[in-house]
Each structure stands twice: as C-alpha cells, then as structure tokens.
C-alpha cells in the first residue's frame, strides 16, 4: 500500500506546523489553532498506519481517533472560553500578537 505512507508523511508535516504555531506564535487564538493542527496530524498518522496491513483498515485506531476528535473539540471549546475570559479581565493587550503573555 503506497498511499498510506503519503498520509503518514503528511501527518508528520502537520505535527511540525502545529508545534511551530504553538511555540512561536503569541496570539492565543492562533496557539489554540496550532494545538488543533497538531492533533489533526497525530490522527492522520494513526489512520495512515491503520492501512498498513492488507484486507481492510484496522478498526481500533479508528475508534481511538473518533474519541480523540470529540475530546479535541471539547478542549478547544474550553480553551476558547478561557481566552474570552482572559480578554475580558486583562484587556486586549494580553491576546495580541506582541502581548506580554
């Protein structure tokens, strides 16, 4: 199966982009976006690895990724609510691209 290796490589690329956004960028919304891209890359590596054997994809990584998507969305909702709260408390300087945080 040649295509699954392409998906694993692309997942690794997404992980690197997500880590870059998470570490380098200052704006909190963009950091949240970086965490989401990171989790998408990890899911894509898992699902690409599930196609490694012949005779249909493996079911267990798909169930894990299904759970992981729901957990990632819940964590994103919590993080965005916290960002809105920080913005209300400390003003716009705290979430800007060159803020003090």
């Amino acid at each position, binding site marked *: 199966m040649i295509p699954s290796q392409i998906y694993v490589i692309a997942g690794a690329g997404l992980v690197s982009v997500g880590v870059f956004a998470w570490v380098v960028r200052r704006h909190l919304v963009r950091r949240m*976006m970086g965490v*989401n891209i990171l989790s998408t890359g990890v899911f894509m590596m898992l699902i690409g690895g599930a196609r490694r054997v012949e005779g249909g994809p493996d079911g267990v990584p798909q169930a894990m990724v299904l759970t992981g998507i729901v957990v990632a969305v819940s964590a994103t909702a919590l993080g965005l609510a916290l960002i*809105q709260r920080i*913005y209300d408390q400390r003003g716009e300087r705290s979430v800007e691209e060159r803020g003090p945080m």
Partner: protein
Amino acid sequence: MIVFDVVLMVTLWVLAVGAVSQADLFKSVVLFVTMGVVVAVAWARLGAADLAMVEVAVGAGITGALFLNTLGHLEQRPGERGEGEDTSHL
C-alpha cells in the same frame, strides 16, 4: 490514484501553513475551517467513512463556529482591527 493522494496532501499542508502564518486572524480561521473539510475528504479516501462524517460535522462545523464566535467576542471592543465593520459608534 496516487496523484489524487499527493494533491490532497499538498493542499492540506499548504492550508495548514497558511492558517498558521497569516497576519489576518479572520483569514486564518477560514483557512482552518477549509483544512477541516480537506481532512474529511482524506479520511473518506482512507476508508474511514464514520470518521469523515464526525470530522465534517464536528471539526469543520462546530470548531469553525467556536473560532468565529471568539473572534466576534474579541472584536466587540474598540481599538481592535475589524474586517471593515463600522466600530466608531461603540
């Protein structure tokens, strides 16, 4: 068929880099939502139909709505840059 895979993955990577490196926050949110749609197509290609359904409903729909909601909250205050809205009356 392998051309399809390569084009899909290159599109996905370009969208991720664009969403991270745009200066305009609204533009990067739209690129992020688009990336969710492309990921759903990739999972339909990999034979995970249920995963593609959940991704397009949750990853592209609800996450995009949450990010846009946060942007609307951040732009309600004066002094923040907007997408051409008139904020002088606030």
